[in-house]
């Protein structure tokens, strides 16, 4: 399969690889996918008091398109409010990366990951109140 230049770029130079402390109240973690399906994404966001995503980190087990989808996502969410970040759609990721139809599920997974991370940080904050 031929990969687009953008997928190759993210794969060769993944942005924001890493791990945050998931116990931190300001950190939201979204872990989606399953090893059995061949992809697992862990996306983490650090959210400030104004509800803006200050930093994002990811680690992904999966094909090049899955790695690129999550890497791109970390770039996109940084600086956005939680509300803005929920508006990111898998379609946008797939379009930006030029994913072929068989790889659309990678972008779906990325959308699931950011939603799960946002949900996580909101739940944590709610629990503390």
């Amino acid at each position, binding site marked *: 399969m031929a990969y687009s230049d953008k997928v190759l770029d993210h794969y060769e130079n993944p942005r924001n690889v890493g791990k945050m402390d998931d116990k931190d109240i300001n950190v939201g973690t979204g872990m989606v996918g399953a090893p059995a399906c*061949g992809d697992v994404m862990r996306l983490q966001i650090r959210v400030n008091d104004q509800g803006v995503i200050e930093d994002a980190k990811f680690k992904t087990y999966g*094909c090049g398109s899955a790695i690129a989808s999550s890497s791109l996502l970390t770039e996109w969410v940084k600086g956005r409010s939680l509300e803005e970040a929920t508006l990111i759609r898998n379609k946008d990721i797939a379009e930006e990366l030029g994913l072929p139809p068989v790889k659309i599920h990678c972008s779906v997974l990325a959308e699931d990951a950011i939603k799960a991370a946002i949900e996580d940080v909101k739940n944590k904050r709610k629990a503390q109140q």
Partner: protein
Amino acid sequence: MQYPIYLDYSATSPVDPRVAQKMSECLTSEANFGNPASRSHMFGWKAEEAVETARRQVADLINCDPREIVWTSGATEADNLAIKGAAHFYSKQGKHIITSKIEHKAVLDSCRQLEREGFEVTYLDPAESGIITPEQVAAAIRPDTILVSLMHVNNEIGVINDIEAIGKITREKNVIFHVDAAQSTGKIDIDLDKMPVDLMSLTAHKVYGPKGIGALFVRRKPRVRIEPQMHGGGHERGMRSGTLATHQIVGMGEAYRIAKAEMHEENARILALRDRLLDGLKDIEEVYVNGDLAHRVAGNLNISFNFVEGESLMMALRDLAVSSGSACTSASLEPSYVLRAIGLNDELAHSSLRISLGRFTQESEIDYAIGKIHEAVAKLRELSPLWDMFKDGVDLNQVKWAAH
């Protein structure tokens, strides 16, 4: 060194230059282009002579009578002809067929078709080694069993079945035995004088011959009958019609001649390279060889790198032409059915590489591959949340995954 380095000889091999030379002598008007079936002139006679020489060369490698060789378009057609042909011919004696879960799709899909026609098929489970034992076959044979179809060497994991021992059982029980030998000719010795095999599928392109040509061995003593699947001019004693492709056949003959002359020396050299490759990789943490290592053809290494996904691994190894058992590399969404059938969990199946070595593989290429694989596995594990969890002591089997 030329990149990418070809390490996918189990998929296909390049044509040996000696073979290409012989083939080119059967194409143009100055050359041997005639129809081997033309009986009325010199062009036909010359072509027929070339075809019969090739038939002897193929028969010589597997030690059978040249009259037992039926040309086909490849091993897929040979599998179809053998399985459907024998099942249809012997259907009055019974409608039960035995095969295994790790056969090539050409065998499995032929069996599926026969199931739709009312035959019953038993699919044997291989052991973790990937091997089907004679005992398993003996236990599965019923009074209405007419055919057993098993591969000699598995295409993904390279393990070798004991065809001679299985053949003794099928012969004793009067059951037709078909063997797909696409991956074994030229890799291990085949002696059909000793092996009680009734039908054997052969191909040229895994043995440095051209694609698009193969053969089916059909035993004469005791005589085995098959119904033709391709009807027409009655070529190949009525078993497979269609004008013989002289250049392809001559190529297969020459490829098999070279294999017979050189295979022992060649396989010793390839085995040393495979051992070097495995030595270079086994110090990586969480590495598993898939299938039995001792009963395996020299050129095959199927290996899983836990917590690394196969397609991304292949992407990192773009300088190496290898194949993966991961679903992402194929049209299907399931990982390799062969690796699943020998008991690998999905993670390990997704993390597998098949590296296959051959005639033109060099030591320097193996050393380069070892270095590249080390780098790629390290890079991808750095990216892998599963590796993180493993390192943190999390039992991944206890995690509740959201399957999608």
